[in-house]
């Protein structure tokens, strides 16, 4: 495996160079401002991937082959050229390949492939959308542009190319999908695409395809899906890590309080960047199930501290909303994620239960049948469903 320095790290782009005190600013490998808390030049940062940290999950025979980057590039290229996304999604080899991270040079092509961007991409449409009249949501978008990745060299300067591209893509999307329009959180997705050196047009189509294929009801005005998923996550946490679920429940902390930004920004605000890209690779391969797996893995990584050192919500919440990045580096995070098992069938069952009694326009969704049980005792809602139903 070779170390391929990312262009952003070694050649500060025009954005950073144009900033008056750019010379005094330090950026990490991914282009983020290095703070006193950021190890600016971690030796691993310069590497294209850190495959050896994942070999632990693989059988020795197969992992040998996978260790070769050449083999992985060849395999992904083969998928891109010859397979349908559906066939790759269910492939065990693809699952193993993705644990190494998609090779940088193929990453966005693979994301577009899984999001089935080619199904919706129409030549000229993006340009046409940019000629449309101003609409009220533009005000909201414009207020958010300088507040989207203000700590990244591509976006930190007012009026920079990065900010202009964000603006163009989000406004075009607001016209393209009026039902969604614009929702805070979408800029975080577009920013990731632009950071991967995608053009505004490619970023637009990947955003459109990603929302269409994976997150159709996430950014709608009632934020329906994030409320459903938080209720489902609450259940899963109870099943997966009872001790932590009880600890959080005792202090009335629900997933909507800490997982909203995880889901709405696909973890870009919670994880160190090396983990973000790896999680996104997995997300594009496997879909929203990964949001739950990673969410539970994050909690597993934070559980020891939460249980031992956070006796009340005053300690729990600040920790949960800003989990130290060293706990969530790719190695511990993916090791934890590999211990989380969720089947699609089980997710569907829980989602059905959550939505069976209707979805309120706002607020938390609770399981209707559990509501009366909750009145009997605070912890009753964390009893397994079947017991609630039979009691």
């Amino acid at each position, binding site marked *: 495996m070779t170390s391929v320095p990312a262009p952003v790290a070694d050649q500060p782009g025009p954005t950073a160079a144009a900033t008056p005190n750019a010379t005094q600013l330090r950026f990490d490998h991914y282009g983020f401002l290095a703070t006193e808390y950021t190890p600016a030049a971690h030796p691993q940062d310069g590497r294209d991937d850190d495959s050896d940290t994942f070999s632990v999950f693989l059988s020795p025979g197969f992992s040998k082959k996978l260790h070769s980057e050449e083999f992985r590039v060849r395999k992904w290229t083969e998928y891109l050229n010859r397979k349908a996304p559906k066939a790759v999604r269910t492939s065990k080899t693809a699952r193993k390949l993705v644990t190494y991270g998609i090779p940088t040079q193929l990453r966005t092509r693979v994301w577009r492939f899984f999001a089935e961007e080619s199904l919706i991409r129409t030549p000229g449409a993006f340009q046409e959308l940019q000629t449309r009249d101003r609409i009220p949501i533009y005000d*909201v978008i414009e*207020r*958010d542009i*300088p*507040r*989207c*990745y*203000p*700590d990244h060299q591509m976006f*930190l300067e007012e009026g920079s190319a990065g900010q202009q591209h964000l603006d163009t893509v989000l406004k075009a999307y607001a016209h393209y999908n009026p039902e969604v329009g614009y*929702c*805070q*959180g979408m*800029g*975080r997705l577009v920013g990731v695409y632009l950071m991967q050196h995608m053009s505004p047009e490619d970023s637009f189509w990947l955003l459109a395809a990603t929302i269409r294929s994976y997150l159709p009801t996430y*950014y*709608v*005005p*009632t*934020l329906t899906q994030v*409320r459903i998923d938080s209720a489902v996550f609450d259940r899963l946490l109870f099943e997966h890590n009872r001790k932590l679920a*009880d600890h959080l429940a*005792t*202090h*009335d*902390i*629900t997933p*909507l*309080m*800490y997982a*909203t*930004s995880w889901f*709405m*920004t696909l973890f870009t*605000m919670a994880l160190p960047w090396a983990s973000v890209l790896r999680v996104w690779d997995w997300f594009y391969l496997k879909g929203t199930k990964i949001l739950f797996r990673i969410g539970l893995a994050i909690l597993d990584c934070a559980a020891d501290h939460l249980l031992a050192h956070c006796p*009340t*919500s*005053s300690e*729990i*919440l*600040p920790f949960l*909303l800003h989990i130290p990045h060293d706990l969530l580096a790719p190695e511990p995070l993916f090791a934890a994620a590999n211990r989380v098992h969720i089947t699609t069938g089980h997710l569907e069952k829980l989602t059905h239960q959550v939505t069976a009694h209707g979805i309120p*326009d*706002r*607020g*938390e969704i609770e399981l209707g049948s559990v509501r009366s049980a909750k009145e*009997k*005792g*605070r*912890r*009753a809602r*964390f*009893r397994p469903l079947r017991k609630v139903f039979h009691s």
Partner: protein
Amino acid sequence: MSISRGSGAGATKTFNFKLVLLGESAVGKSSLVVRFVKDQFDDYRESTIGAAFFTQVVPVDDQTTVKFEIWDTAGQERYKSLAPMYYRNAQCAVVVFDITQEASFEKAKTWVKELQRQADPDIVIALVGNKNDLTSRRAVPAEEAQAYADEAGLLFQETSAKTGANVGDLFKAIAKKMPLDSQKHSQKGGRTSASGASRPSVDLSNGGASNAAGNCAC
């Protein structure tokens, strides 16, 4: 709310209150709370997605300290669907607008109405006109906001998170407005919890929890 007592001579009592920040997007809610909690200011802060959480203590007098547990909420209209979770059981609310944006003042009024309708009837509400360092771009006269606050029974303060002006005073004024009747509240007891619900008593809720746990251990 909950109370903890220090020990020994000259001990102070600490009262915990849950505070929620509401208001239009980009009026400076996060900047205000970061100025209050960390005494810092950034020209551009990342938009708040969901909500952020902070705690800060305010000494009220020699014997009394108030500890605020602060939920700083996302401002975009559609995140409003999550707001009840944060203001439910809050004992105080800070509703922020931007003095250079008339529309944000109107939005603040709708937040006040929603709180008066849906939140705890005893909630203490402060209306805050932020960005008062930008006087040349002022769009909301201070007198107008003050008159509305008087009429609606709210505390009112103009602040600048950027310069720090009046930020400390604002939270101190809220702290002084909170019910610090230790007799009454020490009877109430209750634990610190995210939703801030005051339990009928510590004993009751502990009993309830352990009973439920007992039922579950099957």
